[in-house]
């Protein structure tokens, strides 16, 4: 990354579409546009695919995060003798990550094998077996470039370190040891009601009034006990915010949406014969997805240039319309359309007034969105959080770890059998929505302290310890008396933390405007919302074109082919 490669000239110099950044939304648009016979140039300043959706070696992750954590002063315009017909608008980068906190507890081991790690920048993330990403992969044949494995189970965690399996299916309810008989009956009847509703059975139809009401009210109306409500809301419907506290809930789930989530979950279980759970995870990490769509685009003629920074936007002096981009090599490339990675923003040259049309649009473009942040954490351990099972999801519902916790915290453990780390190791991805960095840190630390032993002899760990002492101490005391019926054996040692990276990420939304900009990874577990946004952006720039028309199928493959390896 350090040595600047010589920039080869790009030929041709005019394209239908230039896409900057190889994150998942950009890659999908590049593939869709190429499929629609557009000429596409796909650039990335990074030497790897995936941008903010990439999976990186252990040593590269901190540098990637920190390179996007500050807003460097815009580079001087390389040349001032611009051709007269264009104005130059220089790109600036946004600070997207903050409070980056890397702790290493066993430096030798990890440094030697840095390349054996594929750490997701936007973790935790999974694919539901029946979600939009899987549909898209199958429809476009992109699945041929990837392999998946099943994430075997979902658990709900508590502040005592117990992991309770989520009774998410008939068989799981039957097998569950934590639910009472009455709870089992109520939960199964609720599932049947939802299934009947979805199947269109008249006698079990959920009324329109109920569908428009908050999901939590509907669950109350069904008489479901708190434990089951929590399972449904946070571990199956994957609600982000505390649904029972309207004061803090920014995203109150409607019954209709809750039921759609349940339907998605239900359709995901058992969709593929060799996937036991509802979720899939790609071998070599989530970065594979972006890469797979890039390959798909390349097959259709998209031109790829990595390690190619762009410096400025070329706009028509008179009309203010977009014309092209200037590359770091100094070459100007022209296109009708441009898609920008959320990293970049356009700054107006000081003192010069922009052309009229541009002036009107720019405020929208640079509008700072106030969607809060997401705190992410990556931990590496040598032992699984749960014996006998290596790949699984854990959800900590709001208020499950401490009273002020208003968002769900999700944790995904991925083992070396998915080629993301050294054999025998485990990568834990943790995330939670938050208002600011401090709140985010507190959420991530709460989970770490509940589940992990954090060694004291770290170089940069002092802050972590002090900050979490208040939460941790209470938790530590209770672990010993955790109920014997609990799935986690209280007698066992907690896994020891080897390495961790904690950071906050801005939740920048995609924008469709003067120039289209793609969104940052969101706080969801899957890609459904991102794919929706991506589709909208594509429609905006190519309203006449179909988004991956059915006829584009080169390899008409049956469902089963997308199924993971066993």
């Amino acid at each position, binding site marked *: 990354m350090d040595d600047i490669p010589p920039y080869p000239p790009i030929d041709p110099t005019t394209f239908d579409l230039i896409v900057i950044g190889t994150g998942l939304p950009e890659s999908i648009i590049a593939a869709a546009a190429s499929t629609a016979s557009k000429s596409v140039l796909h650039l990335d300043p990074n030497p790897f695919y995936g941008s903010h959706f990439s999976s990186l070696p252990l040593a590269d992750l901190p540098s990637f995060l920190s390179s996007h954590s500050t807003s460097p002063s815009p580079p001087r315009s390389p040349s001032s003798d611009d051709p007269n017909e264009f104005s130059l608008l220089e790109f600036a980068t946004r600070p997207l990550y903050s409070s980056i906190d890397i702790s290493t507890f066993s430096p030798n081991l990890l440094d030697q094998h840095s390349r054996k790690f594929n750490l997701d920048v936007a973790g935790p993330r999974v694919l539901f077996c029946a979600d939009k990403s899987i549909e898209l992969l199958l429809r476009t044949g992109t699945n041929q470039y990837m392999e998946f494995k099943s994430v075997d189970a979902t658990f709900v965690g508590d502040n005592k370190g117990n992991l309770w399996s989520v009774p998410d299916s*008939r*068989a799981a*309810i*039957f*097998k569950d040891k934590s639910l009472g008989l009455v709870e*089992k*009956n109520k939960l*199964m*009847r609720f599932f049947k009601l939802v299934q009947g509703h979805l199947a269109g059975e008249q006698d079990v139809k959920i009324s329109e009034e109920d569908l428009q009401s908050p999901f939590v009210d509907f669950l109350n109306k069904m008489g479901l006990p708190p434990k089951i409500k929590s399972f449904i809301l946070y571990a199956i419907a994957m609600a982000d915010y505390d649904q029972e506290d309207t004061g803090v809930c920014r995203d109150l789930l409607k019954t209709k949406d809750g039921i759609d989530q349940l339907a998605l979950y239900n359709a995901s279980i058992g969709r593929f014969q060799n996937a036991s759970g509802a979720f899939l995870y790609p071998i070599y990490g989530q970065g594979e997805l972006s890469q797979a769509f890039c390959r798909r685009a390349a097959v259709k003629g998209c031109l790829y240039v990595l390690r190619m920074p762009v410096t400025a936007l070329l706009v028509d002096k008179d009309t203010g319309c977009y014309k092209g981009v200037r590359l770091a090599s100094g070459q100007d490339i022209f296109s009708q359309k441009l898609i920008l990675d959320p990293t970049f923003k356009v700054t107006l040259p000081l003192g010069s007034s922009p052309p009229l049309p541009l002036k009107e649009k720019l405020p929208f473009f640079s509008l700072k969105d106030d969607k809060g942040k997401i705190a992410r954490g990556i931990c590496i351990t040598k032992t699984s959080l749960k014996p006998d099972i290596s790949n699984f999801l854990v959800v900590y519902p709001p208020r499950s770890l401490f009273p002020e916790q208003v968002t769900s915290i999700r944790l995904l453990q991925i083992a070396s059998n998915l080629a993301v780390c050294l054999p025998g190791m485990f990568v834990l991805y943790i995330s939670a929505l938050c208002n600011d960095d401090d709140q985010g840190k507190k959420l991530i630390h709460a989970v770490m302290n509940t589940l992990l032993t954090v060694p004291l002899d770290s170089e940069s760990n002092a802050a972590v310890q002090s900050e979490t002492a208040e939460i941790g101490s209470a938790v530590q005391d209770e672990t010993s008396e955790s109920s014997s019926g609990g799935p986690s054996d209280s007698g066992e040692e907690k896994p020891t933390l080897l390495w961790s990276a904690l950071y906050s990420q801005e939740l920048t939304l995609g924008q469709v405007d003067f120039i289209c900009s793609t969104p940052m990874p969101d706080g969801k577990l899957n890609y459904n919302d991102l794919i929706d946004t991506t589709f909208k952006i594509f429609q905006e720039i190519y309203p006449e074109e179909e988004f991956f028309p059915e006829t584009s199928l080169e390899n008409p493959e049956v469902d089963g082919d997308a199924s993971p390896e066993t």
Partner: protein
Amino acid sequence: MHGRPRKAPKPEDEAASSAKAQKLRALQTQFFTFHHNKIYTKEAVELSAKLLEINPESYTAWNYRKLAVEHYLNLPDCNPDSIKSVLDDELRVVENALRQNFKSYGAWHHRKWVLSKGHSSIDNELRLLDKFQKADSRNFHAWNYRRYVAESMKRSEQDELKYAEDMIYTNFSNYSAWHNRSVLLSALFEKKAGGFLLKEKVLPEEYEFIHQAIFTDPDDQSGWFYHLWLLDQTVTTDSPLLASSWPGHGSDVLLVGDRCYNGSAFSPFSALHSDSGSFPIVLYFNQPVGGVNSSTVTVECGFNKNEDLFWKPLSASNSQTARVWVAHLKVPSSDLHSTVEVSVGHSKGIISTRGFVYSHPSMFSFKVHVQPMERDSSQVSVAENISLREENFKVYGTQSEESIIDSFDQLIIKNGHETTASNWRFEALAKEIECFRELLSLVDCKIGKLTLARLLKAYDAMSYPFANKLVHSEEVLELYSDLMKLDPTHYQFYKDEHSIVLLQKVTSSKESLLQHCFQYKDSASSAICDPICLRLNNLSLSRMGAFEKLLWVQMLDLSHNELQSIEGLEAMQLLSCLSLRNNKLRSLTTLEPLRKLKSLRILDISYNQIGDQSIDTTRYVCSSPLSHSVGSELNRDETVTSDVALINNWEAFFIFKDFNLNQLDIVGNTIADEKFKSVLVKIMPKLKQLDGKLLD
């Protein structure tokens, strides 16, 4: 397989199937030629394989292959290698056939046959089964074969239990897996394997396990099915027990020559009119048993030799097992006061149909008083006309109540050894009752109600000997009434259960029983004192039950009920007068139990539905179709009769020829026309009165 909707055939499917049929026909013709000429060449055998691959149901082809295998194995140059290759070929053909049709009986049977030759690896079979059972976890052929394989491999029941459990965890809607679990547990109980020594430890865990399935999905029947097995395991004592007898222990039997007896100190439950010079001893067991004879049951009395007693099973079928056994003691015609001691099971030999030995020997004794006849009995009988009309009944007088109270307790036998052993059974039942009350408070569920009814009934039956009352009978009756409304398709089943519970309730206490006891007093009767009639009329009974408490009954009024069958009535050996007037009996064959009642003299079957249907459907659904029992008794000499009327009414002939009736009412049945009546008179020459008319 399950849950896959059937699609309507498309035209191209039909074309394909006719092409297949054509191909099959050609193959078949060729195959039969080989088969008939006993040609077992390689080519011929391969052709049969091809045929089976298309149609695994071709039994002839499987049999042909068996013959071919035998042929090869008997060749002189046959060696272990060639045997193995021949048998491996067979296994391959079966496997291909099973891929075509997983449910082919012939294919599975052929595989068993090949395996039984003992040259093939059995481990391989288990792997194959794992594959097949993963594809269709409920297929009972595969489970059946699995039991065979597990047994041949001597695989432990515990391992198989684990396998079945895993399958249940994958999907608990699996009758086959639950069934296999019950089979394996039974085997472990029997072996008294480690951890399975005590039912009282294992069964509560099993209940806990099945609750998970039932509560998760009460609509799924496989769980209930297993629960029923558990209930049976809880309720049924392994060893059969003597439930009641006639005469009862400690009772005084008065035998009089005519219907009159002197001295009201004798209970109606034990006074008996006998004109045959003998009286029966009836043993009523709690489950069907075999092996009752003069060595397993000894009767000691001064006037009969034990070895002379002949014990006869009383069952609908002619098997040698029954719940009720009877022997007749001959009595001398002189005055007699003697004690009779009966000991049951002191020497081994009584075995239940489930294979358990009668292991709780019991003894009862009673006194016999014989009063010789005072008058010429024939004179009395001629004038006798019993008419069970309302005005002829009188509420049973209180004067003899005391004696009834004493003798009521003699009606059943209390087995003291049950008390200690049954505590866990009580606890298990009580827990189940509580559990299903909770389920029913959550959901309205037919099978849940039925199960609760069964549980309550079982609990009552178990606690009756100690509590002397049926605490839950009202609730059980209500549950069954509810079920009749909720589930009309099974109305008759619930109705039958309802009837039996009602009868148990009636017979459960002396007070309720007395309410149904009436004194028969016909103003026209010449008898000096009045017999007691048990009146169970107008109770809308569809079935009879509670026989163990009714062995003493001599006069029974079942009129105005909804009886379709009188199964079990053969246990009431003392019955001399029976009214079945106004019921729903549909055929003469339903009267079969009456053939075993040797003392029955007066029978009223008027106003039933006998003859309404020309075809007697009960013949095919009853547990005792006449076609089974009668054929075996057929005496050629008797049937060779020139009387056309008898030949045309052979059912009536077989039923009534064994009757010893004086009086019969049959009016109000379709069958009872004048011609039929004349046939009846011919069959029963002793009949004195038919439909109220005296016969010459």
